[in-house]
């Protein structure tokens, strides 16, 4: 028993299985490859090694889709070939896969190779794995050399020092490869490789490579070196940083290509962490100022995202931000590019916690106000979304006067997604501003959303009402919201009448039994005779929803007759939902209706349409 003798030769001759892998239909071939482990299991470990793997190695020419699946499968095939002592059998097919053109396949093959490298014993690694890496590294076509770049790091720590020297030599060669594709691959793996090297070799080998790649003629290579630079800086002792990496990094921050500068801005936090507080203070802060003033909006956007400077030394953080960063931030607030302003708006509020109340009121508040009036809704939205940060520092009252016009404007924005976003902040604002301010200024807005022409907004508005009632209580609801909501039941537009029902669905529970029974239920019941079928079946659904809030006498005396009447409606969807409601509430004896499939299907369709309609 066990995996060794699992295959029954007469039942599953390899030819049949291989036929499956060769099927003319790509989809079937793909399915078979995805179940390769099943085939291997049927063959047993011995025949998997001697027959299946050679077949796979030989017939590697296939559609990339199939190759991708194969590369992935082989990564977890160790058990199926008989465990770690035979894992090297998997190398030949993966080696071929690591040389194909398609990047996705190659990357997957490299991933699988990295995975199984760990299952090799140190001896096998040197006998089987390292030679493969060397072959790839000196391949004719660039694909194999790119793949090799990703494999040095995984075998280096586990081989003898002579082999280590060879590996370093190969990596060096690839870093100065003729093809930019290979140099890009080497550049992107430089950081990873540096991490497994001994510190002396980091200094003697990696640093020159880093310097060379960071001044490559192609900006695509240079920008990848920036990321490597961050990893390398983290490995070196503080005293070496200045001589070994800083000149290169400084140069990258002033590169003539915006892509490289963008990368520096994008990796800024990591970079600060890697070089430590001293260098950050003296060196990176000026560089950062330049990035904030960069001529390309892309770079400014990336930099603006980092203005909080999380990694700055605790003691001098406030001073640095006040004296060096804030002046640039002030300029960015009136940048010409909306993405820059939008990025800034999403982080600028975070500065208030760092700078404290006085500075916030004096320096930041005016900036918030400018951004709140920005011409782009996204900028204003980002400010409003982060109001809670400021609230902690100075309280929202200070902002409310200037906040209000901005909110009102966003609430009426032409884009419904903007309106939706602002609705979602209403409960938060209401909580912070208090009930009086809310009633006076915002209540009418919340009610206006209920008759928005976009369904998503009406839906969000009902949900918003519920949250408001949770905050302000049932009594407030009864006085301010409920009358208006119920008033809409007489609207001439059936969509507005339905909104009443949806509001009741949402509000009944938070308003409690009394309000629901006394005020809402009569309206719902009255709507059961509405001339529009959609309203009637929503009455049925509404009754089911508010049922649990009502007491049993109301259910029996008032709800039951209405539902029974709706169950005999001439519209089949009304019928359907009335019956649903009846059975859902376990109130009555179920009438013996037969639900045919077509019946419920059409109901669902109709239901679907009723929601995608807009007036």
């Amino acid at each position, binding site marked *: *028993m*066990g*995996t060794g003798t*699992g295959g029954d030769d007469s*039942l*599953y001759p390899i030819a*049949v299985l291989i036929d*499956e892998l060769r099927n*003319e239909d*790509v989809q*079937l071939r793909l399915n078979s490859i995805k*179940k390769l482990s*099943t*085939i291997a*299991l*049927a063959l047993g470990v011995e025949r998997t090694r001697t027959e299946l793997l050679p077949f796979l190695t030989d017939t590697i020419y296939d*559609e990339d889709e199939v190759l991708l699946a194969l590369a992935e499968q082989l990564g977890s095939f160790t058990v199926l070939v008989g465990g770690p002592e035979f894992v090297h059998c998997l190398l030949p097919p993966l080696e071929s896969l690591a040389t194909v*053109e*398609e*990047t996705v396949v190659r990357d997957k093959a490299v991933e699988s190779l990295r995975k199984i490298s760990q299952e090799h014993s140190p001896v096998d690694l040197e006998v089987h794995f390292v030679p493969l890496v060397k072959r790839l590294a000196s391949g004719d*076509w*660039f694909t194999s050399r790119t793949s090799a770049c990703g494999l040095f790091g995984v075998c280096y720590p586990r081989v003898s020092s002579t082999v280590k020297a060879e590996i370093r030599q190969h990596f060096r060669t690839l870093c100065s490869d003729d*093809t*930019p*594709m290979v140099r*890009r691959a080497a550049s992107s793996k430089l950081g990873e490789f540096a991490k497994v090297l001994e510190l002396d070799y980091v200094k003697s080998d990696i640093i020159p490579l880093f310097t060379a790649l960071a001044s490559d*003629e192609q*900006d*695509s290579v240079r920008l990848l070196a920036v990321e490597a630079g961050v990893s390398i800086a983290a490995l070196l002792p503080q005293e070496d940083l200045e001589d070994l990496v800083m000149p290169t990094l400084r140069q990258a921050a002033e590169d*003539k*290509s*915006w*892509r490289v500068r963008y990368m520096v801005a994008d990796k800024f936090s990591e970079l600060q962490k890697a070089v430590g507080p001293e260098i950050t203070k003296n060196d990176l802060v000026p560089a950062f100022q330049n990035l904030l*003033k960069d*001529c*390309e*909006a*892309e770079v400014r956007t990336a930099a603006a995202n980092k203005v909080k400077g999380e990694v700055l030394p605790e003691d001098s953080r406030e001073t640095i931000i006040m004296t060096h960063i804030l002046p640039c931030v002030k300029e960015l607030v009136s940048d010409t590019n909306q993405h820059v302003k939008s990025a800034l708006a999403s982080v600028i509020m975070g500065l208030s916690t760092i700078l404290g109340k006085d500075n916030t009121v004096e320096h930041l508040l005016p900036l918030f106000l400018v951004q709140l009036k920005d011409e782009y809704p996204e900028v204003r939205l980002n400010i409003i979304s982060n109001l809670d940060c400021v609230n902690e520092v100075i309280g929202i009252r200070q902002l409310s006067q200037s906040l209000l016009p901005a909110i009102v404007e966003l609430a009426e924005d032409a884009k419904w997604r903007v309106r939706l976003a602002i609705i979602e902040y209403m409960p938060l604002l209401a909580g912070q501003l208090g009930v009086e301010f809310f009633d006076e200024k915002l209540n009418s807005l919340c009610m206006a959303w209920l008759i928005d022409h976009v369904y998503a907004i009406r839906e969000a508005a009902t949900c918003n009402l519920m949250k408001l009632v949770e905050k302000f209580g049932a009594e407030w609801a009864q006085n301010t919201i409920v009358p208006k909501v119920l008033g809409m039941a007489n609207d001439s537009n059936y969509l507005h009448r339905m909104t009443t029902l949806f509001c009741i669905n949402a509000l009944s529970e938070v308003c409690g039994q009394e309000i629901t029974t006394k005020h809402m239920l009569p309206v719902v019941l009255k709507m059961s005779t509405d001339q529009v079928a959609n309203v009637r079946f929503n009455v049925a659904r509404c009754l089911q929803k508010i049922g649990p809030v009502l007491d049993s006498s109301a259910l029996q005396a008032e709800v039951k007759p209405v539902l029974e009447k709706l169950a005999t409606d001439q519209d089949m969807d009304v019928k359907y939902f009335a019956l649903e409601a009846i059975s859902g509430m376990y109130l009555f004896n179920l009438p013996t209706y037969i639900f045919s499939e077509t019946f419920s299907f059409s109901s669902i369709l109709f239901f679907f349409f009723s929601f995608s309609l807009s007036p």
Partner: protein
Amino acid sequence: RVVSSPPALEMSAISASEKVDGFTRKSVRKAQRQRGCQGSSQFAASSSRPAAPEISALPQLKDASSTEQHELFMQKLQQCCVMFDFYDTVTDLKSKETKRATLSELVDYVSTNRGVLVEPVYPEITTMVSTNIFRTLPPSENPDFDPEEDEPTLEASWPHMQLVYEFFLRFLENPDFQPSTAKRYIDQKFVLQLLELFDTEDPREREFIKTVLHRIYGKFLGLRAFVRKQINNIFLRYIYETEHFNGVAELLEILGSIINGFALPLKAEHKQFLMKILIPMHTAKGLALFHAQLAYCVVQFIEKDPTLTEVVVRGLLKFWPKTCSQKEVMFLGEIEEILDVIEPTQFKKIQEPLFKQISKCVSSPHFQVAERALYYWNNEYILSLIEENNAKILPIMFGNLYRISKEHWNPTIVALVYNVLKTLMEMNSKLFDELTASYKCDRQREKKKEQEREELWRKLDELRLQETSAIQNNRHEIQFTAETLSFTRVTSVP
């Protein structure tokens, strides 16, 4: 603001008229109109630098004596190295006009005069051209720029840049131009920077660079291999890494004429280019933008060396689009172009896999794909090839044709299929009758095979389940044995 014609039309109008004179009022006007929303890395960068020095008009070259002319020419070249910020529409207006007039005069000067290209002007010219055109291209204004749908961002400084390109072309085309002198300045680095510019979004600029590169390729033999290698790299990056490069069509156009000039037998390098770059390029998302040029290159190769037919067709079949009908139609078009020039012996080598694919296309639910494939039967040469090999092709095509003649939703397709069936019947009525007779049996056999496969996989899956439970049982056993062992040891040591 007047927007007269749809963007596609307007663009083609520009490139067509530029082929004639290189100057189009319309495109210049358009650039000015759109200035508000465009960037240029070069000039945006200069805004942080000190303002450009004012330049004042020098005397006209034609008024200068022949001894002064050379010196004045040099001065004017240097003057044209001063860069202006076209982002800013209000400052330096006078200097900008002076530079424009000077450039325009220089264009005139190098195209009408003989003997002006003495050695010292080469470095000056190269410097002036480099300063004006080489720059890191700015990020696209529209990150989701769709070259088929969106208006390209036009280069702000075009009023100057166009003249610089014009001047450079006239310089390269001047009868006195000496490549042996120029090669010191127009070197690998220069060409590399030029190639990067092909990524510009401005189609007017790409059109100029294309002509410039073509001239350079023609005149500098020493740079040819380098240019080809760098174009390869650009294409590989486009196919496998970024899927973004605006100048693919233009580069392919140049390559089309380069391939045309290849000597026979083809070098391995060129074959590799065909198989590893041109064929995989068919997988690109933006194929529609350069398919015509790409197909031209591929057909050029086959015309040069017909023995490449088999690998090319098999390559195209490998990358045949799975879901994109628009691309499928393009592939069918390219295959027809290949079939137009195919040698009958080569045709025999690929007919089976090819017609299996065509048979699938014919039965495509997308009527444009089906229609495009069925049009093959209107092509006399293809028809003759099919007739010659009907014993092989008829059985491949029959099943699907017969089926869709009854099932296809589109009446036009059904009509076309009937015609094709009729043609095939006339070619070999005996085989046709046999196929009709065995159609049902064949379908049943296929069904049976299908069932057998399902059965096989069902059994394999069962086996898998057994194995998994067996392994688990095994583990239990091992655990149990371990317990027994420890128990034995405890008892054996009293």
